[in-house]
Structures are given as C-alpha cells and as structure tokens.
C-alpha cells in the first residue's frame, strides 16, 4: 500500500484582484487528505472554503501554490463535484442528470445505463427516473446530485454545502444516506459546510477555517466508530464537547470579521 496522500495541497493562495482593494481569499493553505478519508471544511461564510473547493474542482485557478490529486485507475476522472441545490440541469430528466458525467465521458451505453440505474436505486429515485427536476423536492434534487457524482466514479468527491438549503429533517436523512453510500465506495471526500453538527457527524477529520485571509486554523480528528447513527452521535458527550470547542473557535472568527 502506498502511503501517499490522495489530495495534497501546498501553499495554495488565491487573491481576487481589484484595483483598490484586493482580497486574499486563501493564504498559504497546505494540507493532505488520505485515501478514503472523509474531511469536512468548516468556516464562516466568506472564509474562502468554496474558493478552495472550486480550485480543486478545476473551476478556478489558484494565484500561487499547487495541489495534486493522486491518480488511481486510468479510466477514472480525478474529481467530481456535488453542487448546491441549483446544480442539477432542469432540461434533463432525473435519469439523464445522473448519467451526465458518464455521457460526457462517452462511455458505452450499456455501462451508462447500468451505473445510472444502480445509483438511482441507491438514492431511492428509481421510480422518478423519467421526471424533470421541477417536479422534485429539494431533498430529491440533492439525491440526484449525489447520485450523479457517485455514478461518475471519480478519484475524489468534492461537496459544496450540498445540504445547505434543505430543511432539518431532510438534512438528517440525506446525511445518513450519504454516509451509507460512501461507506460502500470508500471515496475520498472533501465536504464543505458551515454547520458544525454536520461536520462532526459526517467526517473523520474537521478542518476549521478563518476568514480574510482564509487559513486553516485548527483541525480535529473525529474517531467515532462507523457506521454512525444519528441517535448515538447526538447522545455522545464527547461530541458535545467537540462541538463547543469548534464553536468557541468560530465564534471568535465570526465576531472578528464583524468588527
């Protein structure tokens, strides 16, 4: 087994240049994420966590520094992103949306069909395959988005606050579902959220970010055994103290950025 990290980021910096006041969104971010690790990045809004994810997703270029995603299987794309709620294409049916990544790679029809059907059923949308997104609820839309990313079978998964717009009950359900699919595939995941609870429940490791300039200021290992049940997680006193520790950290950050 190689002990090389799956994602390694060195001194990544991103500056948004404006004539009068340039903003340093990310400053010298360095971090490693191991193969199969589920890492959550938590921080106040505007701390640059989405920028970091967009750079890894190839949607934005860094100003300096570099990152590598360790290649594995040749046929696999290096990364796929689960977008926020508006990220599924309204002119495609549920099925076409899930197949999107596979279609873009022009894989054989039979494989596309099989994998699409498999992940549609995994997220419980088998019956809704022929529907258009405007007929779906927010939770169902995010299931489509998750199925699309997993069906694409990338080296790593990037998730940009996928449950941010959902109501609380739906959020819990989708978190559990995500963990169950993830535990089957053991993908490396970088997950962005502003919810401390979500980060604690989902991840192996939580990274805390500060705003302006965006830096990683702390990290915390979460060694709660898996599979995790929401009930166990909730009643675990260690989690409560971790929550408070993160909250104290972020509180300073949020109030600091208000001044």
């Amino acid at each position, binding site marked *: 087994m190689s002990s090389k990290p799956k994602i390694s980021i060195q001194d990544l910096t991103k500056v948004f240049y404006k004539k009068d006041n340039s903003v340093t969104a990310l400053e010298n971010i360095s971090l490693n994420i191991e193969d199969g690790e589920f890492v959550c990045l938590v921080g106040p809004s505007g701390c640059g966590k989405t920028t970091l994810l967009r750079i890894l*997703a*190839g*949607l934005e270029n860094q100003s300096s520094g570099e990152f590598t995603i360790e290649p594995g299987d040749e046929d696999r*794309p290096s*990364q*796929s*992103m689960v*977008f*926020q709620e*508006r*990220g*599924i*294409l*309204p*002119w*495609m049916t549920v099925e076409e949306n899930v197949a*999107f*990544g596979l*279609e*873009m*790679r022009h894989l054989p029809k039979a494989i596309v069909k099989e994998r699409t059907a498999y992940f549609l059923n995994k997220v419980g949308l088998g019956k809704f395959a022929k529907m*258009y*997104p*405007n007929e779906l609820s927010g939770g169902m839309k995010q299931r489509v988005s998750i199925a*699309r990313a997993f069906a*694409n079978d990338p080296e790593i998964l990037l998730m940009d606050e996928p449950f941010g717009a959902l109501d609380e009950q739906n959020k819990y359900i989708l978190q559990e579902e995500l963990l169950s699919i993830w535990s089957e595939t053991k993908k490396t995941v970088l997950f962005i959220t502003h919810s401390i609870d979500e980060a604690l429940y989902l991840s192996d490791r939580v990274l805390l970010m500060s705003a302006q300039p965006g830096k990683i200021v702390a990290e915390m290992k979460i060694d709660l055994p898996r599979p995790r049940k929401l009930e166990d997680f909730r009643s675990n006193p260690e989690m409560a103290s971790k929550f408070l520790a993160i909250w104290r950290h972020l509180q300073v950050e949020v109030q600091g950025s208000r001044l």
Partner: protein
Amino acid sequence: MRDIKDPIETEQQEWKKQQNQNRLKTWLTIFSPVCLLLVWEFLSQSGLIDARFFPPPTAIVSTFIELLTSGELFHHINISLFRIGFGFLLGVIPGILIGLCMGLYAPIRHFISPIIMALMPIPTIALLPIILIIFGIGEVSKVVTIAGSVFFPVVINTVAGVISIDSIYLDVAKNYGASRKDFFLKIALPGSLPVMLEGIQMGQAIALLTIVAAEMMGATSGIGYLIWTSYSAFLLKEMFVGLILISFFGYIFSLLLRGLQRKLVPWR
C-alpha cells in the same frame, strides 16, 4: 344550538362554487367575440353605423364564401403562406445560429451587436424600396422582407437566452468534462431554448405585420394585396375578409408555436 355540518359537505360546496366560477370564466372568453359580432351586426343592419364602411358580419361571411368558391381566395392565401413560411425560416434559422454564436463567444457578441442594435430599429418595410431594387419585384423580395423582420427578435432573444443560463450549469458542464460539442448541444441549446422560443413567437407576429405591408406595396397577389386593392376599389366586404384572414392565421400560428414549445421545452 350549534349548527353541526359535515366538513366534507362544506368543502364539496366550496368546490362546486369554484367549478361554477371557472365555467363562467370560460363562457366569458367565448362570449366576448360573439358579443362584439352581434353588436356590430345590429349597428350595421339598423343603420346606426354606416354599412358601407362597416358591412354586417353576415355580409362579410357571404362574401368570404363567394371568394372561396371562386378559388380567388385560395390563390391569395397560398401565395401569402408561401411567403410567410419561407421568409420565416430564412429569418429564424440564421437568427438562431448567429444568436448562439454571439451568446457563446463574447468577442463575436461585442463585434456584431452594434450592427444589430443599429439595424434593429429600422422597420424592414422602410427598407422595402431598397429590397425591391436589389431583389426585383418577384417573390424573393417579399421573402427577404419577412426574413429581415423576423431575424431581429429571434437573434436578440437567442443571445439573451444563452447569456441568461445560470452560471452554475456552466460549472457543472466544466466539472464533468463536457466537450465543446456536448456543451453546445446539452447546455447552451436547451438552456437558451425557452427565451429563444419567445423570440420566435414574436417573429411570427411581426411576419404577419410585414407580409400585409409588403404585399400592399410591391405585389399583385396575396392577402395584403387583397386588402389593399379591395380598399382602393371600395370593396370593403372583401377588405374585411382579408383582415379577418390575417387575424385567423395569427391565431393559428401562435397555437402551432405554443404546441411546438410544449414539445421542445417539456421541463417547464
């Protein structure tokens, strides 16, 4: 004593009331044109308005049947539909293609849009003399006139349609590695389609306006010609037949396009 009602019965009555109101609305919609025709007929027959200028609808209908049986009307309708059809396609197809190019490639957009902005306010009809000089008085000049007037709303709406595609969809395409061709067919085209179709709907309306005007000026046949010569010869019943035909075709065309819209944009 409290009056205890069955809740289902209450709701049923409420529902019936709703149904009746909906039925009333449908009736009102059907009733209003019929009402207009009746008032017209009455005023014209009774001499309250001059029957020479506003012949009663029944007289127009009998003129319509006369023209229809003599075959004259078919000739005018055929030639007008031919001009509209070809002119429409000749305006819509380049409009969509140029619009998509402008929407997708900013340099092309910035290069072409001043020309379009400058030409757009000029009514194509005002260019008819030049068009007649270039293309002669044959069919080509009418088709070109219609194409010219249809082109602008289509191109402008297509550009607007492409530009208005939410940037998150562009991110999705990029993240999942869409090729240029896939991006064009799976993102740009369907994404701009709803707004583009509104432009085509507008183009259709403008095509009808233009055909009538074009046939009034440089033609010896067509519905516009029928209207104009009938008017010149003071055959107002014939003129009204022409006007009503235009209204009829306008209605049919927008129905057809709406049907097409439902086919092409099933996700709305």
